[in-house]
């Protein structure tokens, strides 16, 4: 096999020096970009501009895999499908029964609130979304969902699955959006301990299966198994969504504060169908009662079968 002669004759010393200089310049440029990106997201402008180019590429890569998944579902046997329908119907009946009870509670709750003259509970509307199957960098703690600006998504909206909070909408393109997971080291979430009403903040650790609570008083009443829910402070997350379960509390002597390690309840790595908490229609019964979505009613119970 003959090699085509290189386009440049790689000259001796001089060429090399120029190349080294260029390496320095580009290296510096890359470092500056990284610093700007890391410290305060000065480049989010760049990201949102380039989304026009990047998004179609992502969608193009996604398409065949989505098709494959669809085909896999088509090929599933009739028998299996019937079994699943039966199972889902059963679940649906159970949930409906629960819902009737909850409606009862809701009216009772409204009554009590009126008596107490408390403000009305914040009403929340959900929008179903599906995770796209393409893999982003596993260390970025971000996932892509198949809803975007066109569906009314906005930055900062909470994303949950059937088990709990999984993240927050980070960057919105036309038909897709990046979701930053609560396990991202940059993510902090105001939470409340359900049992004791203690308010604190849960930080991401960079590990998909762990959150960190720091700055707890040494005599804090916290035990493994306590459930953390969103406190609603900060205004982005509605209060009361389950977040995590405390796994371990460490009180190291010599340190001023206790720390705790918690396991997120939402299935950060396995959820396929998620819900974006789309709008908080605070004092508007009408807006809350009309579902925002017409096609976004995918059953959440389906989550159990997702990725292998």
């Amino acid at each position: 096999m003959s090699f085509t002669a290189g386009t440049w004759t790689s000259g001796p010393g001089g060429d090399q020096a120029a190349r080294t200089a260029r390496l320095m310049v580009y290296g510096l440029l890359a470092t500056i970009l990284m610093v700007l990106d890391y410290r305060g997201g000065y480049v989010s402008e760049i990201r949102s501009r380039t989304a026009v180019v990047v998004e179609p590429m992502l969608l193009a890569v996604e398409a065949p895999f989505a098709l494959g998944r669809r085909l896999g579902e088509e090929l599933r046997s009739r028998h299996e499908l019937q079994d699943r329908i039966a199972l889902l119907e059963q679940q649906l009946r159970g949930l409906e029964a629960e819902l009737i009870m909850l409606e009862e509670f809701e009216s009772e709750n409204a009554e009590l609130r009126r008596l107490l003259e408390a403000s009305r509970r914040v009403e929340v509307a959900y929008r179903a979304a599906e995770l796209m199957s393409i893999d982003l960098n596993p260390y970025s703690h971000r996932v892509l969902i198949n809803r975007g600006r066109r569906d009314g998504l906005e930055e900062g909206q909470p994303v949950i699955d059937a088990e709990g909070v999984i993240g927050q909408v980070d960057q919105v393109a036309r038909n897709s959006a990046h979701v930053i997971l609560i396990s991202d080291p940059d993510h902090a979430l105001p939470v409340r301990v359900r049992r004791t009403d203690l308010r604190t903040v849960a930080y991401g650790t960079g590990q998909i299966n762990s959150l960190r609570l720091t700055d707890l008083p040494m005599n804090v009443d916290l035990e493994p198994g306590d459930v953390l829910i969103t406190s609603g402070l900060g205004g982005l997350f509605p209060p009361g969504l389950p977040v995590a379960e405390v796994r371990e509390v460490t009180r190291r002597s010599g340190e001023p504060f206790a720390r705790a390690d918690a396991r997120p309840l939402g299935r950060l790595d396995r959820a396929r169908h998620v819900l974006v908490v789309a709008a908080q229609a605070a004092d508007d019964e009408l807006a809350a009662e009309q579902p925002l979505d017409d096609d976004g009613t995918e059953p959440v119970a389906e989550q159990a079968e997702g990725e292998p």
Partner: protein
Amino acid sequence: MSRPMPVSKVMLLSLLGALVLTLMPLPDELAPARPYWVALVVIYWNLEAGRLRHLGQAFGLGLLLDLLTGTLLGQHALSLIVISYLTERFRNRLRFFPPWQQAAAVMALLFNDRIVQLWVIGLTDDAWPHWSWWLAPLIGMILWPWLFLLLDRLRQLERLQKT
């Protein structure tokens, strides 16, 4: 110094293929060990065809990769310019290595790149990568000869078509 070369379809296709393979869904256990496809393709075109030798091209590709994978902007750019620089530096030696020796050299390049990226990951306070992350250079080495043969064959076909 450089005269413009006609755009090679095979090159564009291989780059596109590398990007697709980078984004392709993998099971969670395997995802960290995903070979660095773009780097492999860039090394190939530099060594064998003398293309993609400009650091600017490596930088641009890296930025594209960062945007696509949602990485810290500049991380892949930095890693690719280092790879491109080192490949160019040792080009004359690497080209005439026997295939398995060349594969070992490629592994060394990729391993060095892991260290560069680990530096960035460490600075940005992310968690330490999973151990299988270090498998990626090894997988890259195993893939290298086959990628080499495949791209060589495609390039030959393209040349035959032109004449």
